[in-house]
């Protein structure tokens, strides 16, 4: 009775990381518990029905789960909780989706009352066909994803044994010359392939693209890759050409400007969700080839219409990649049920400890509003308040001071409001990248930044995702999309790529004191704080005095 684990009544598990058995315990509970927070001393895991069912799907049984809890728990585990876990896990697999030689896709049960119960549900009725025998009912093949999702919501998750189509074969191999997949990337690919479909969660800069490439090499079939924007699409292409046996000609780009369909096609979410006269004209992309693998980059940004199409793609292998599965719209569970469960997850700090991402020093700088600004802020309309305090003039001085301090290093200034960015760009003498900047111009500037020709770049939220700026060592955030936690994580990701000289990255967040800017900042930082990135808080005066 001196284990590292404490089981809480709200079904969270607290793991004391400094305990000698912590690693064993982490391995034992990882299959069924979600890592929720990973600050320095105590990590919090959560046991959810979904997690338990995923554990069942991965071949773990209730006995193992209960054993893990009882073995590592410091205090007696409430009996009711163990019973609840056993009962929850027992619900999985009462229903099975499988292929039937005569009827196609069928839903079978080992427990007839359960089938009766779900068939009575109004939401299930339109998804199923004829009753074949008392224990079997036909399912429309197109509704495979839908019925799985609905059954999950009803609390009777179906075990999907219908398998995957192999897709059109296309040889792809990794070209590991002078580099190799890192151990955790290997593990991620393996976990994904073993599980069939699912989501891999890795910190920004930890090489998610390579996990995608690894999965493609494993599948060796035609692949559809969905990414957030064109710049990101180009980078995927660049990376794939560099790291795999694929050539430029084998990779197509399907975006607003180009509509190429090749064995490996990279499409943007935007083009897929373009709607003309009430229909999505580019959806046929999904059916244009017999894809063997579909990769969803930045799955936390997956737009709602794509969810619906994804439901129809349950027979194809699906890989989701993300740094944070925090969706501000709370649809994490849809990601899990449609793309697949989380197959791999590594705490950021763990990867940092292995040296694959740079250590970062996060600092929140609090600036004081001037007296006249305070009065203006107090009288501002509610919807204008954030804009007002986030763009206060004092932030400019602080930003300049930080840029001065890191003169000679690559500095990114990131913000939300174009006026503010333009003004900063002017004062810092740095180019500004915003929505209206053309793709060509963007790539030119990024290149110049990469080459070190320019050392300071001011970017709006267009550059939030998937731009690869290897040598940025300092990021200064002056304003953001209100309290978006995943934006904060993405922005920190900009500076986490390992540095050639191995030195520390710096992430500054400039925040106006005693305003809602401060409240939003606290909310934004929570995810990173829970990943173990503690923010230091500094006063602007202190910072200005130092420099």
């Amino acid at each position: 009775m001196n284990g590292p684990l404490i089981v809480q009544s709200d079904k969270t598990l607290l793991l004391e990381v400094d305990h000698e058995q912590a690693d064993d315990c982490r391995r034992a509970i990882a299959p069924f518990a979600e890592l929720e927070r990973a600050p320095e001393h105590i990590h919090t895991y959560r046991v959810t029905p979904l997690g338990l069912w995923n554990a069942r799907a991965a071949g773990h049984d209730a006995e193992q789960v209960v054993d893990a809890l009882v073995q590592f728990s410091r205090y007696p585990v409430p009996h009711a909780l163990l019973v609840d876990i056993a009962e929850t896990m027992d619900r999985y697999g009462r229903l099975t989706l499988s292929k039937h030689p005569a009827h196609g896709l069928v839903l079978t049960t080992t427990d007839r009352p359960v089938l009766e119960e779900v068939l009575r549900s109004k939401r299930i009725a339109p998804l199923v066909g004829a009753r074949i025998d008392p224990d079997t009912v036909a399912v429309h093949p197109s509704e495979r994803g839908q019925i799985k999702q609905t059954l999950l919501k009803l609390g009777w998750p179906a075990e999907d044994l219908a398998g995957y189509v192999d897709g059109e074969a296309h040889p792809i191999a990794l070209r590991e010359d002078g580099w190799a997949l890192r151990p955790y990337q290997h593990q991620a690919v393996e976990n994904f392939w073993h599980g069939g479909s699912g989501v891999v969660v890795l910190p920004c800069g930890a090489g998610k693209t390579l996990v995608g490439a690894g999965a493609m090499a494993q599948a060796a079939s035609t692949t559809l890759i969905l990414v957030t924007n064109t710049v990101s699409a180009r980078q995927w292409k660049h990376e794939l050409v560099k790291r795999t046996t694929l050539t430029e000609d084998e990779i197509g780009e399907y975006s607003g400007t180009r509509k190429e369909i090749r064995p490996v096609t990279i499409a943007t979410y935007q083009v897929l969700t373009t709607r003309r006269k009430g229909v999505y004209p580019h959806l046929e992309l999904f059916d244009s080839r017999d894809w063997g693998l579909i990769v969803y980059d930045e799955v936390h940004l997956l737009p709602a219409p794509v969810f619906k199409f994804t439901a129809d793609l349950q027979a194809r292998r699906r890989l989701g990649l993300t740094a944070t599965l925090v969706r501000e719209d709370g649809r994490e569970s849809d990601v899990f049920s449609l793309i697949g469960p989380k197959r791999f997850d590594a705490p950021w700090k763990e990867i940092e400890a292995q040296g694959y991402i740079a250590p970062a020093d996060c600092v929140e700088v609090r600036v004081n509003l001037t007296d006249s600004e305070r009065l203006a802020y107090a009288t501002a309309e509610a919807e204008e308040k954030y804009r007002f305090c986030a763009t206060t003039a004092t932030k400019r001085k602080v930003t300049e001071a930080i840029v001065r301090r890191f003169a000679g290093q690559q500095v990114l200034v990131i913000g939300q409001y174009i006026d503010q960015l333009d003004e900063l760009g002017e004062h810092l003498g740095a180019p500004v990248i915003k929505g209206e900047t053309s793709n060509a111009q963007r790539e030119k500037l990024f290149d110049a930044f990469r080459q070190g020709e320019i050392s300071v770049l001011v970017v709006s939220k267009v550059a939030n995702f998937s731009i690869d700026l290897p040598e940025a060592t300092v990021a200064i955030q002056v304003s953001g999309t209100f309290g978006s936690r995943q934006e904060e994580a993405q922005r920190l990701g900009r500076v986490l790529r390992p540095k050639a000289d191995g030195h520390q990255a710096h992430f500054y967040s400039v925040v106006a004191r005693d305003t809602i800017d401060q409240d939003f900042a606290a909310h934004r930082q929570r995810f990173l704080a829970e990943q173990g990135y503690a923010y230091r808080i500094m006063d602007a005066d202190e910072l200005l005095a130092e420099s």
Partner: protein
Amino acid sequence: MSSDEKPDGRTAAPRSLAEALRARDDASLAALLRARPDLITPVPTDLTQLATRAGTRASVVRALERLDRFALQTAEALAVAGDPASYDELLGLMTGDDGDATVAAALPRAVRTLREQALVWGGDDRLRLVRTARELLSPSPQHPSPTGLGPTVQEATAGMSPGRIQELVAAAGLPSTHDAVSAAAALTALFTDRERMAKLLGQAPAEAREVLSRLVWGPPYGQVTADPATHLRWLLDRGLLLPTAPGTVVLPREVALHLRGGRAHRETEPVPPPVEPAGPTGTRQGSPQVVDATAAGQAYTALATVEELLKDWDEGGPAVLRAGGLSVRDLKRTAVALDVSEPVAAFWVELAYAAGLIASDGEADERYAATPAHDEWRERPAADRWADLAGAWLAATRTAGLVGGRDAKDRTLAALGPGLDRSVAPEVRRRVLALLAALPAGTSPDPESVLARLRWERPLRGPQQEDDLRSRLARWTLQEAELLGVTGRGALSSHGRALLGAPEPHAADDAARTQGSPDVPDTPGDKLPVHHRAAPAGAPAAGSVPSGPADPQARAAARAAAARRLAPLLPEPLDHVLLQADLTAVAPGPLQRPLADVLDVLADVESKGGATVYRFTPASVRRALDAGRSASDLHAFLAAHSRTPVPQPLAYLIDDVARRHGHLRVGAASAYVRCDDDAVLNEILADKRSTALRLRRLAPTVLAAQADPAALLEGLRALGYAPAAESAEGDVVITRADARRTPPRTPPEPVPEGPPVPDATLLAAAVRAIRAGDLASTAPRKTPGTPPAPGELPRTSPAETLATVQAAVLTGEALWIGYVNADGAASQRVIAPVRVEGGFVTAYDHTADEVRTYPLHRITGVAELADD
């Protein structure tokens, strides 16, 4: 079993229950009184009175309800046997013709129980069921017996015509007899003779046998049409079915017994159903250590929950409903606050109430609040606190499980409200736990087998129900014991065992108990004393294990023992927390009270369980500052109780909140003094006479006063200043002496003495009325005794009535009178008075044709009858 074992078998056969009791020794009488405590309230004067009281219906019903199923079945069998019945006859009824070794072995104990309880008396050759019990248990059409037997031939033929009986006898192939009684006896003899009966039934048509088999196990009554089918006719003709009422027939008891092979019960249950260990249901049977640890964990949770409840109610709990109890809304709110379901919340609330930790405050606006006892309780060690709760639970008659149900008047039963007391609750709780205690340590029982056992021990007379009060109480007991940590994983913990006052189980004993062997004297038949009176020294209660400690000292000792056992199992309170940069603090176990109290203020609780997760927020830090702590206090506190350095964001948070804390100040003043010249204000403050005004300088030109504006003006004037009052808008208020006026009022009405003087009209009317009356009484009658108009009562004055009646007595004449009876109904009668005395007239009433007595004052008047 031989008769010399029984105390009442030694002497000559007793002739009554009283004699049988007289023959008993003291121990045996004490046993009777212990089993039926209602017999000694009040203490009977002698054994005859005791016997009478033991035979009263209420007492017998009570005793029967407390019999176990086999003893009750035995009593039921006796009720259908002859009176008296021999032991062998009873044995035959219980085992049937084939015999049943288990029943035969269990029967002596059942008979002994019945004898001990004075429900049966007499020697083995003449067992007699107490008459009341016989009436209660023997079959009748209104109350069918659980045996499913009908009346005897003798009873069923009682109202039958002698001719019909002779026909039956003839049809059954018997010689005719002289009278109905001997004919019935002959039929009885035939029906009880297995061989002849078999022969008779052998001739029966197949459908007839089918009819008999339908009725044989009861109910024995059937419907027939006026013109029965042939096979029914065959049965009716031979008396195998006897008519009871038009259209209804009954299967006589003797015939049924023949068909049943002599058994009174379809199934006898001589052995109590054993309490089975729970089957493998995903979670295995724990070892005693696991059970103890789990139960201790739950015990700790129970304490935490009760403390949380009390904390929630600390600053004023919910209001008391007018009918008493907690409103549904408050219960819901409490359930949400405790993060449990409503029934469970009701349990915790009731538990805190039973333990005397909360009560109504009795104010006009009645609310629930913690009691002073709670403050003492809080300071005690955790194990003692638990023992208090568990002890209170065990003894409480209040049952939380009933909350939310409805009473007989269809009112919802509220938590803490009236109507939740069930006097059997403590008994059932102890019994259930005793059954658990009888299992080997660490074994959890199958709840259904516990319920089955309880139902065997206290069967309900009448149809068996799944949901009777005892079963529900037992189910609640199992759930509540788990919640409270008396049991862990369904098995009784060692501290739970100590709480019961039960010794550690011995392996050999266990086996015997679980098998429920009837030879272990204390197992199957033992009865819990309902009364909490110590057993007489000379006769220790046989089943002392389950009955547990009865007197307060023993119970206190049991609680102390339970606390001693629990104490080492509870986690040791910690003196440190882990602070993290995400502004949380984790207490990896229970905290020492002062530390927990401070943290509760300084941070919000985010998750509870083995550990507690606290989150620091600006609001929570401000709360701590409001509670009088300074930022440096808080830094020092965190540094002292954290094993790791205080994270910078947390330190910054505290400083940041402290920086703004108290920046704005709010206070109350009832008046102020304003003056542009500070020197004047200095002067006022310096003046000693101004202390009464309680002035305080807020700013160079403003003083705040606790005195009201009028007093302040007065005071300043007394100091020699000339202040002016200021309105809320800051204008000078012009003061004038205001004339004060009431709202419109009317002048008061004069109040005269005595009644009002009457006016002339009234006086005239009164005089006229008096005169008229006087005239009526004094004017000579024209024709005394004039018959009134037809249809009216004769009216004469009382004196005249008396005279007329007395005259009529002498003359023997009949009179016509008007009479008003006690209900006020008037009638006219013709009477011939016989006697007049004491205000009554006795007369022959021609109208009613009998002699009657009439009070004179009820006679309205008399008139002589016309001579013709």
